[in-house]
C-alpha cells in the first residue's frame, strides 16, 4: 500500500479539556537528563555518550542505575577540573584530546554525542562549536552531535528528548514525492519495537521506521511525507524538530495497556486507510492476550488508590491505564512537565478526581501523600524506602522506564509491576 502524503487521514486534533493543574516550586526530587544515557547507550549500539561535566555527573551515572554491570559502557564523563575553569588549560583543546583518546580506544564508535551538563551550561561551554570542529577531523568515520542533559534544563526522560531532537537535523532527507511513511519515535526495548513492526507490517503499513535506530547509519530519513507516532510522551522538542523537517504528528494516546495500544495502533491504521476488518484481524489475538494478562491482576489492583510523584512524564498515560483498564483510583498525578498537546488523549481520559500537578515542592507533596495514605505510591529511588518505613507501599518509577511496558505483550507485565509491591506486603510476616 503506497499512499501520498495528501492521502493520509490525519486524526482530528484533540485539545485538552480544562482542568486545574497544581503548580508548585520548591525542591525537585528528580534525576537530570543525563540519566537517559543509561538506556540510550544500549539502544544505539555504535553510539558513545561523552558527558562534559563534573565528578558529580560521573558519580550520578554510576550510582543511579548501578551501571557497573556493563564491562565497558558506551558512555563516559570528561571531568572538568580546576585548571580548565581557571583558564590554565584551554577547555576546547582538552576536549579535543579527550575525544581523540576515546575514539582511538573505541574504533567501533560511529556516532558520538557530546552531552552538556549543569556546569558546562553555566560556564557556557559551546559544545555545538566543539562538535562542528571535531566533526571536521573525524568525519566520515564518526558523526559528532551535541545536546544538553543538564539538570538546569532537563529532568530525567527529557534527556532522551534532547538527544533525539539533536539527531533529527542530521536525519537523511526524503524526496518530496516519496510515498507517505510512518515513523515511530522514542526509544523502545528492541523486543517491543519488533512487535510493533510486525503488527504494522501485517496491517500493510510499512516499512515502519523507528527513531532512534539501533545503529547510527540506520537512522530513518524524514521529510514532508513522514507521519509519526510518539511511543513516549516526553518528546516535546523532538516533535518540534520533526515538524521543522516537515513531518506530521499523529496525535494519539500512548501505547500502554490493551486500550492504549489499540488506540495508538488504530490512529496509524486510520491514517493509512487500513480497513476495519484488517485492523481487527491483526490485533485480535494480541489484544485478547493483553486483556487476559491484565485481568489476572485486576483483583489485586481494582479500587486501590495510587499517587504519582513526578518523574518520567509517563505518569499521565500510566494513570490513564491504571484507572481505565484496572479500576485503580489515581489521587494525585505529578509530572515534571505537562505537554497538553502530546498528552491530550490520556489527560482527557483521567477522571476529574485525579489531581494533576506539574513541577514539585517535594516536602509539600510528601505532606499531601502522607495525608492521603494511598495504597501505592509511584516515586523515585530517594523517596521509596523512607515511605515504605512509614508503611506506605511504593513502586519505583525508574523501573517503569527501564522495563519494556509498551504494547500488547507487555500489558500484563505493566500491571504486574504495580501488583507486585502490594502482593509482597501480603506475603511478608516479619
Amino acid at each position, binding site marked *: 500500500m503506497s499512499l501520498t502524503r495528501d492521502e493520509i487521514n490525519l486524526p482530528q486534533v484533540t485539545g485538552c479539556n480544562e482542568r486545574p493543574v497544581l503548580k508548585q516550586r*520548591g*525542591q*525537585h*526530587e*528528580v*534525576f*537530570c*537528563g*543525563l*540519566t537517559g544515557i543509561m538506556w540510550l547507550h544500549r539502544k544505539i549500539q555504535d553510539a558513545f555518550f561523552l558527558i*562534559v561535566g*563534573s*565528578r*558529580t555527573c*560521573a*558519580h*550520578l551515572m*554510576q*550510582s*543511579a542505575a548501578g551501571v*557497573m554491570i556493563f*564491562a*565497558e*559502557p558506551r*558512555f*563516559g*564523563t*570528561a*571531568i*572538568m*577540573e*580546576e585548571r*580548565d*575553569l581557571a583558564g590554565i*588549560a584551554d*577547555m576546547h583543546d*582538552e*576536549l579535543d584530546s*579527550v575525544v581523540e*583518546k*576515546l575514539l582511538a580506544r573505541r574504533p567501533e564508535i560511529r556516532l558520538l554525542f557530546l552531552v552538556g551538563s*549543569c*556546569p558546562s*551550561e*553555566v*560556564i557556557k561551554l559551546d559544545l555545538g562549536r566543539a562538535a562542528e570542529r571535531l566533526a571536521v577531523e573525524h568525519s566520515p568515520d564518526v558523526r559528532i552531535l551535541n545536546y544538553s542533559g*543538564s*539538570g*538546569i*534544563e532537563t*529532568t530525567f526522560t527529557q534527556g532522551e528528548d534532547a538527544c533525539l531532537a539533536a539527531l533529527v537535523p542530521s536525519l537523511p532527507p526524503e524526496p518530496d514525492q516519496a510515498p507517505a511513511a510512518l515513523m515511530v519515535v522514542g526509544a523502545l526495548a528492541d523486543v517491543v519495537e519488533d512487535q510493533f513492526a510486525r503488527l504494522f507490517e501485517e496491517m500493510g503499513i510499512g516499512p515502519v521506521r523507528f527513531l532512534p535506530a539501533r545503529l547510527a547509519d540506520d537512522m530513518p530519513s524524514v521529510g514532508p511525507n513522514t507521519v509519526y507516532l510518539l511511543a513516549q510522551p516526553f518528546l516535546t522538542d523532538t516533535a518540534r524538530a520533526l515538524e521543522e523537517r516537515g513531518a506530521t504528528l499523529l496525535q494519539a494516546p500512548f501505547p500502554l495497556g490493551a486500550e492504549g495500544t489499540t488506540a495508538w495502533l488504530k490512529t496509524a491504521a486510520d491514517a493509512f486507510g487500513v480497513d476495519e476488518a484488517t485492523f481487527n484481524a491483526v490485533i485480535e489475538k494480541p489484544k485478547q492476550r493483553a486483556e487476559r494478562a491484565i485481568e489476572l491482576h485486576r483483583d489485586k489492583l481494582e479500587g486501590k488508590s495510587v499517587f504519582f510523584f513526578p518523574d518520567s512524564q509517563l505518569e499521565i498515560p500510566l494513570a490513564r491505564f491504571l484507572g481505565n483498564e484496572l479500576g485503580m483510583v489515581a489521587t494525585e498525578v505529578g509530572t515534571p512537565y505537562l505537554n497538553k498537546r502530546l498528552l491530550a488523549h490520556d489527560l482527557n481520559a483521567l477522571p476529574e478526581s485525579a489531581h494533576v500537578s506539574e513541577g514539585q515542592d517535594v*516536602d509539600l507533596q510528601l505532606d499531601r501523600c502522607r495525608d492521603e495514605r494511598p495504597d501505592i505510591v509511584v516515586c*523515585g*529511588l*530517594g*523517596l*521509596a*524506602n*523512607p515511605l515504605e*518505613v512509614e508503611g506506605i507501599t511504593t513502586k519505583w518509577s525508574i523501573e517503569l522506564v527501564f522495563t519494556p511496558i509498551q504494547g500488547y505483550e507487555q500489558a500484563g507485565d505493566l500491571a504486574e509491576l504495580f501488583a507486585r509491591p502490594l502482593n509482597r506486603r501480603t506475603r511478608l510476616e516479619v
Partner: protein
Amino acid sequence: MQLTVWTYEGPPHVGAMRIATAMTDLHYVLHAPQGDTYADLLFTMIERRKKRPPVTYTTFQARDLGGDTSQLFMDAARDAQERFQPAAMIVGASCTGELIQDDPGGLSKTMGLPIPVIPLELPSYSKKENWGASETFYQVARTIAPQGPDKVEADYKSCNIIGPTALGFRHRDDVREIVGLIESMGIHVNVVAPLDASVHDILRLKQADFNVCLYPETGLTTCTWLKRQFRQPHTKTVPIGVNATIDFMRELAELTGISDEECETLVQENEVRLPWYSRSIDSTYLTGKRVYLFGDATHVIAMARVAQKEMGYQVVGMGTYSREFARDVREAAELYGIEALITDDYLEVEEQVQNLQPELVLGSQMERHIAKRLGLPCAVISAPVHVQDFPARYSPQMGFEGANVLFDTLVHPLTMGLEEHLLHMFRDDFEFNDAAGPSHLGHGSSKTAPASATSDETQEKVSNGPLTWTMEAEKELKKIPFFVRGKARRNTEKFAGELGLAEITMETLYEAKSHFSR
C-alpha cells in the same frame, strides 16, 4: 579534563552529605541544580537508611539563573530550618552551585537563623568525597566543640571515636566492635562522631582524655585539630587485623596508663580464631598466594599487613585512590618491596592487575569487576560501597571479630587446598576443571570461568607475534591453572625472546619454568 567512566569517589558535597546523614540533628542546605538530588538514593537505596538524608537542595533551573538564585537559597534555608528544626545547619554549594558564586555561607549569615550555621567551602573541581567528609566534620567540630563546657576531671579515662560516617564501608559494625573493645579495657567511650552523634554530643567532645582516629580519611583532620585545641592525643593504629588490634590496645594502654602486663592480660581475654585457622595445616595452600590490593588508604594498608603477616600471602601489588594519604600507602608498600600505585583511574588499576596476574584481588567494587573480567578471585575490602557492602549480619572489619571476618573474607573466594591439587592433577576431567570454578561457591562461580577462558584466548591471539608455539607446547600450557597461565605464557615468550628462539616447544616451556622459578 579527565576522561572517566568510573569514579572511586563522589564529589566533595557527597562527603558533606555523609556527615549530615550520619548525625541525628544536623541539616544540610545545598545550593545545587535539580538532578543533584540523585545523591539521596545512595543513602536510601545503597545503605537502606530509613529516613531521607537531612538535605535540602535549592534545585535551581536554567530559568532561575537569570533571576535571583540567592533568594532561592535563602528561602530554601529558611523553609528547611522551620520544617526540620535542626540543632545546627551546614550550608554550601555543589559543583554547579559553586560556579554561580552566590556564597551560601555569606547569605546565611545575614539571615539571622536561630541556630548555628556552618558554611562549607568544598572546591568541587579539585577535591573529592572523602576530603569533603573530613573537611565538613572538621568545620562542624571547630564551630560547635569550643562552645561546650570545660573538661570535668573524672576518675576514669575516656575517649571519643572519630571518623565513622554514613555510607562508610562497615562503619556500623566496626563502631560496635571497637566500642566493645575499648570498654572491655575499662575505658569510657565519651562520644562517637559523626555516626549517630547529635550536635549536643559535639559540644561534649572536650570531655574526653583522648581520641580514637578510627578512619583517618574522614577523621584525621578533626583529630589533629582536637589535639592542637584541647591537647587530646589520638591513636595512630587502625585496628584491622589481629596484630593491628593488639597494637591498638597497647596504644590505648599507654594513653590511659594501663600497665604492659595488664594490657597483655586484656589481649588474652579476647577470643580470636584467625591465628589458629591460619596455622591449621589445611591453610598451607594459602602460602605465598599472590595478592593485589587497591582501595582507600586505611583499608589497603591494614589489609596488606593482614594478608602478608597473618594469612601468609605474598603482597605483589597495592595502591590507593586516596591521594591525601599517598605517602602512607607508599611507605607501607615499601615494607613488601613494591611500589604503590596512586591513581583514581581504574584503567590503570586494571592494567596493573593484568600484568601482575595475582591469585587474589582485594579491592573495591570496581576491582571486583576487574577481577571478574580477568577471571580472578576477589574480595571487597573497601569503599566505594555497593548495596552488598551493607550485609544484614554483623560483619565488622575491625577488632578481633573483624579479624575472624577477614579470615573468611580472604579465603572464601579461593579454591580450597585439596581441591586445587586435584584440579592440577586431573585437568581434563570434564566436570572438574578450571571452568567449573571453586566447588564451594556453587553454580554462580562457574560464571567466572568463561570470562577467564575468553581473556585467555584473546591473549593467545595477541601474543602470537613472531613466536610460534608448537601444538604440543600449547596443549601443555593449557594444563597450567588458568590463573597463572597468562603469566606462564608471557614468561615463556620472554625467555624464548631472550634466547632468540622462533618456536616454543614443550621443552622451552619447562626450561622457562625452571628459569623463572624462585
